[in-house]
């Protein structure tokens, strides 16, 4: 496929991700930090986010499954997840975390369980989409092109 066709697909796809709120301006900020000397920066950070999130989601599942729910511990985990999702621009995941923490404050188990369900869904969605976006990038690079910047989506 032609490089500019691939680039257009990438931009279209990215535009959609921003428009639907999956990603916010922080993701564009990360892209600014990628260059020839660090061509895989975004991929590396996003990979760390995936690892981190999966560990936290696992810990949250276990913590909410206890007889006596430790809301402090849950809040600490959600705080971490909120932080890392915010750092990579995973907006929808971050937003669920905000709601999640409110339920922790209220010591509302039902609310927490619903949020856990929701945050897992949002996480899987953004993971799938970021992986698809990455594949488009890889195709561009393989065809000898440069990855378009996403500053317009800040």
């Amino acid at each position, binding site marked *: 496929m032609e490089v500019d066709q691939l680039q257009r697909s990438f931009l279209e796809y990215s535009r959609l991700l921003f428009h639907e709120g999956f990603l916010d301006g*922080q993701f564009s*900020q*990360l892209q*600014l*930090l*990628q*260059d*020839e*000397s*660090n061509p895989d*920066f975004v991929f*590396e*950070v996003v990979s*760390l*986010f995936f690892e*981190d999130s999966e560990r936290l989601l696992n810990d949250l599942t276990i913590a909410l499954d206890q007889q006596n729910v430790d809301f402090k511990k849950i809040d*600490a985990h959600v*705080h*971490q997840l*909120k*932080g*890392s999702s*915010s*750092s*990579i*621009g995973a907006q929808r995941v971050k937003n669920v975390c*905000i709601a999640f923490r409110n339920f922790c404050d209220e010591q509302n188990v039902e609310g927490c369980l619903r949020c856990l369900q929701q945050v897992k869904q949002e996480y899987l969605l953004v993971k799938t989409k970021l992986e698809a976006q990455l594949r488009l990038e890889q195709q561009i690079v393989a065809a000898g092109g*440069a*990855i378009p*910047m996403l500053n317009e989506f800040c």
Partner: protein
Amino acid sequence: MEEMGSDCSSSGLQELHVLAVDDSLVDRKVIERLLKISCCKVTAVESGRRALQYLGLDGERSSVGFDELKVNLIMTDYSMPGMTGYELLKKIKGSSKLREIPVVIMSSENVLARIDRCLEEGAEEFLVKPVKLSDVERLRDFILRGEEKNEREFSRKRKTSDDSCTPASSPSSSDSDLPSSPISPISVSTVSDEPRPKRARLLDDN
């Protein structure tokens, strides 16, 4: 693709050495890159304890002599397990050896009481996460101006004084002739009319 400050040697900028403290792996990676792309040397550690070890302040002998690792700026996350960024700040400001090093607190939570507490304790600035490239560049420029000023003052004092050289003053104590910078040192008691970008941004958030 755009090149963002990738050629640090030709930019003529003195390289600051920044110690970054954050328990989040993702955030450490990001802050490290933000700093490197802004032509800073970075040492990133995961806890306050490790930071103190690195700075040679934990009572134990650090593996390298302190002078070799002169740290020009410490950037620390606020919420960390074990020792918080605030506690780290207090330890640093309470140390005669380290108190001159500017400390910046980073936090995803914009709690005014928290910000005030940190600034009162001597933090240079309170950055709301996620930290952006423009935050880091502005911070670097501010610290660089302070360092240059310290060097000029120090060499001036060496020429004019006999034996007693007062240590270089902290960047935060002498702000009268700094060009107007968005992060001019903040005194908690003053309520200035000048917009303080960080505060304004905090109040706008959610």
